C-alpha cells in the first residue's frame, strides 16, 4: 500500500526543553492514523512540524515520497487545535475565502452539506457554538479536496452529542478516500476512528501499531475491577497482576472464574465487581505510568 506521509527522526528543541525527541512514523494512504498522548507529550508540535508551520530542529517529512513542500501545501487540509477566525465575517465568506487560496478547490455546496453548515451560512463566525465552530474549521480544512487531513484535538471541549456527530463526519470523509492524521487525548475517540495509533510521551513514541495489536501484545485476558473500599484485606497471595488507581483495584487475568474464586473471600460486596476488556487507556497507563488526561 502507498505511504502517504512519512516522518523521519523529527527533533524539536526549545531552550531547555526537548519537545520532540526523534519521532519517526509512516502513514499509509487511506487510513486514519492517531497520535495519542497526554497534554505536553509533543504531539501538537510533531504535527505542526509535519504541517510546515513549525520548523524542526532536525528531521524530514516526506509526502508521497517527496520532501513535503508546495504540493503538500496545496493538497493537505489542516484543522489546528486553536484557530481564531476573522470577526464580522460569515461562515459562507470564511469558506469562500479559504477556498480561493487554493488552485485545487472543492465544490462549495458539497462541503457545506457534508459539514451540515447550510443553516449557518450567513452567521457571523463569532456567533457559532463550539460544535458549529469545529464543523466550520473542518469545512475550512476540506476546501481544497485534501488527500491528507490533519485534525488536532478536534473534539476537545465539545459535548458528547457534538463529539459523536463529529466522529460521523470524520468517518464520512475517510470513506471518500482521504488519509487522516488525528491527534487526541480521548481514547474512545481513537478506538472509534483510528486504524493505527502511535502513543507519545515526553517527546517520544512509546508504542505504535493498530489498537487491537497493541492491546493483544500488552494484555492477555480480561480485567476484573473492584473498589478498594469493597476489600476486607490487602489481597496478599493473589497470583495476578494487580493495579490500584484512584481507589479502584484492577486484576488482569486469563481465567476469570479461577480469579473470582480467589478474590471472593477478600471482598465484602460482590455486586461491586466489574469485568471488562482492556482498552487504550489501560495501555497508556501501563506504558507511561500516568493517565492520559494528566
Amino acid at each position, binding site marked *: 500500500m502507498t505511504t502517504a506521509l512519512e516522518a523521519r527522526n523529527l527533533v524539536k528543541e526549545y531552550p531547555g526543553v526537548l519537545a520532540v525527541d526523534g519521532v519517526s512514523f509512516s502513514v499509509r494512504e487511506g487510513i486514519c492514523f492517531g497520535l495519542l498522548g497526554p497534554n505536553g507529550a509533543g504531539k501538537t508540535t510533531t504535527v505542526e512540524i509535519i*504541517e*510546515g*508551520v*513549525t520548523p524542526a530542529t532536525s528531521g524530514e517529512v516526506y509526502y508521497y515520497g517527496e520532501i513535503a513542500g*508546495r504540493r503538500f*501545501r*496545496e493538497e*493537505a487540509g*489542516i484543522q*489546528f487545535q*486553536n*484557530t*481564531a*477566525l*476573522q*470577526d*464580522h*465575517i460569515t461562515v459562507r*465568506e470564511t469558506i*469562500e*475565502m*479559504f477556498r*480561493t*487560496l*487554493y*488552485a485545487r478547490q472543492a465544490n462549495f455546496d458539497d462541503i457545506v452539506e457534508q459539514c451540515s453548515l447550510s443553516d449557518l451560512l450567513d452567521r457571523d463566525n463569532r456567533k457559532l457554538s463550539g460544535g458549529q465552530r469545529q464543523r466550520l474549521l473542518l469545512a*475550512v480544512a476540506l476546501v481544497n479536496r485534501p488527500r491528507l487531513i490533519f485534525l488536532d484535538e478536534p473534539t476537545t471541549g465539545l459535548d458528547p452529542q457534538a463529539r459523536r456527530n463529529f466522529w460521523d463526519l470524520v468517518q464520512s470523509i475517510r470513506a471518500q478516500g482521504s488519509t487522516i492524521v488525528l491527534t487526541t487525548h480521548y481514547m474512545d475517540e481513537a478506538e472509534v476512528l483510528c486504524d493505527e495509533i502511535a502513543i507519545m510521551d515526553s517527546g517520544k513514541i512509546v508504542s505504535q501499531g493498530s489498537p487491537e495489536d497493541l492491546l493483544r501484545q500488552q494484555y492477555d485476558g480480561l480485567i476484573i475491577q473492584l473498589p478498594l473500599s469493597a476489600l476486607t484485606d490487602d489481597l496478599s497471595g493473589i497470583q495476578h497482576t494487580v493495579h490500584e488507581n484512584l481507589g479502584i483495584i484492577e486484576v488482569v487475568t486469563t481465567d476469570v472464574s479461577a480469579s473470582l474464586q480467589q478474590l471472593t473471600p477478600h471482598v465484602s460486596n460482590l455486586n461491586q465487581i466489574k469485568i471488562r476488556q482492556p482498552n487504550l487507556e489501560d495501555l497508556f497507563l501501563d506504558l507511561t505510568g500516568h493517565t492520559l488526561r494528566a
Partner: protein
Amino acid sequence: MLQRIYAIFMSRNREFVRDRSTLAWNLMLPVVLMFGLSFAFGGDRDAYTVGVLQQADEINPDSHPFLQTRYIRFVAYADQDLALQKVARHQLDLLVELGETPRYWINPESPKGYFAEIALMQSGAPPHSVLDKQQVSGSEVRYADWVLPGILGMNMMFSCLFGVGYVIVRYRKNGFLKRLSATPLSSFEFIVAQVASRLVLILLVTTFIYAGTHLILDTTMEGNYFTLFLVAVVGAVSLVSVGLLISARVTSEELAGGLLNLVNWPMMLLSGVWFSLEGAGPLVQQAAKLFPLTHVLDAARAVMLDGATLAEIAPSLLSLVLISAVFLTVGARIFRWSAD
C-alpha cells in the same frame, strides 16, 4: 496569485467595514478634527485686536478716529492690570486709553503691536510723526491652510500604523495567521493585500475630510488635485510599510502598541504636523528627513500652498518610494506567521 491577494483584501475590507466601533472611530476622529479646525480658524477673524481702557462696556467709534480703523477689533477693558497682562502675552496687540491725555501700551516684541501702533499714529493720535510706508505683496497663508495637511497626514499616520500594525499582531496572536500559513498563501501576497486594503480605506477617508474642510474653511489649493492625490497614495503606502515592518515579528499587542508609539510620537512632533521646523536645529531637521511623514507633509504643502508641480515634489515622492520599498521588502523577509 492575484486571486489569493483579492480574497484576503476583500476579507479584510469586510472585517473593517462591519466592525462598527472601529469604523465609527476612523470616521469620527477626522470629522471632529475638521470641525475643531473650522471652529478655531473659521469665520471672519479680525486681523488685529486692540484693548480700550474705559469703564463703559460699549465702545463709541465716534469718540476717536482710531476707533474707526477697519480690520481692528476693539475690546473694552475696565481692569488695567488684566488688559496689560493680555498685552504682555500678545493676546492684545495694543492697549489704548483715549481720554484727555491719550496713552497707549505696546509690547515691543509683538509684530502685530508694531503695526497697530502705526495705525494709531496715523489716526491723529499723539505723538505725530511722518511714517515711511512700505508696500508688501503676496497672499496671506492662514494657519488653517498650513495645518490642514498636517492633520490629514497625522490621521493617515495613525490609521496606517495602528490599522495595519495592530491588526497583524492580533492575527498572529490569535492564530489566524498560522492558519493562513498552512495554505498556499505567501507572506508577500498577504502583505500586498493588507497594504491595498488600508490604502483604499485611508484614501477614501482622507479625501472625505479634505473635501469637507475645503468646503467649510475654503482652504488654499494652488496646485493640481491629481498631484496631491498622488502624494496621498505614495505617502499612505510608505506609512503602511512602517506599520508592517514594526508588526513583522511582534507577537504581543502591548509591545506592538509601544513600538508603534515610539515611531508615532517623534513623527508627530518632528515631521512638522503642528509647527514649522524652519527654526529647529540642523540636527533635528536632518533627523526629521528619516520620517516618511516629513516628506508627505513637505510635498502636500508644496502642492497646496505653493502650487508645486509633480516635477518639483519628485524628490519627496522618490524618498517615500524608497522608504516603502526598503520597509516592505525587509518586512516581507522577516515576516513571521506564528506566535510560537
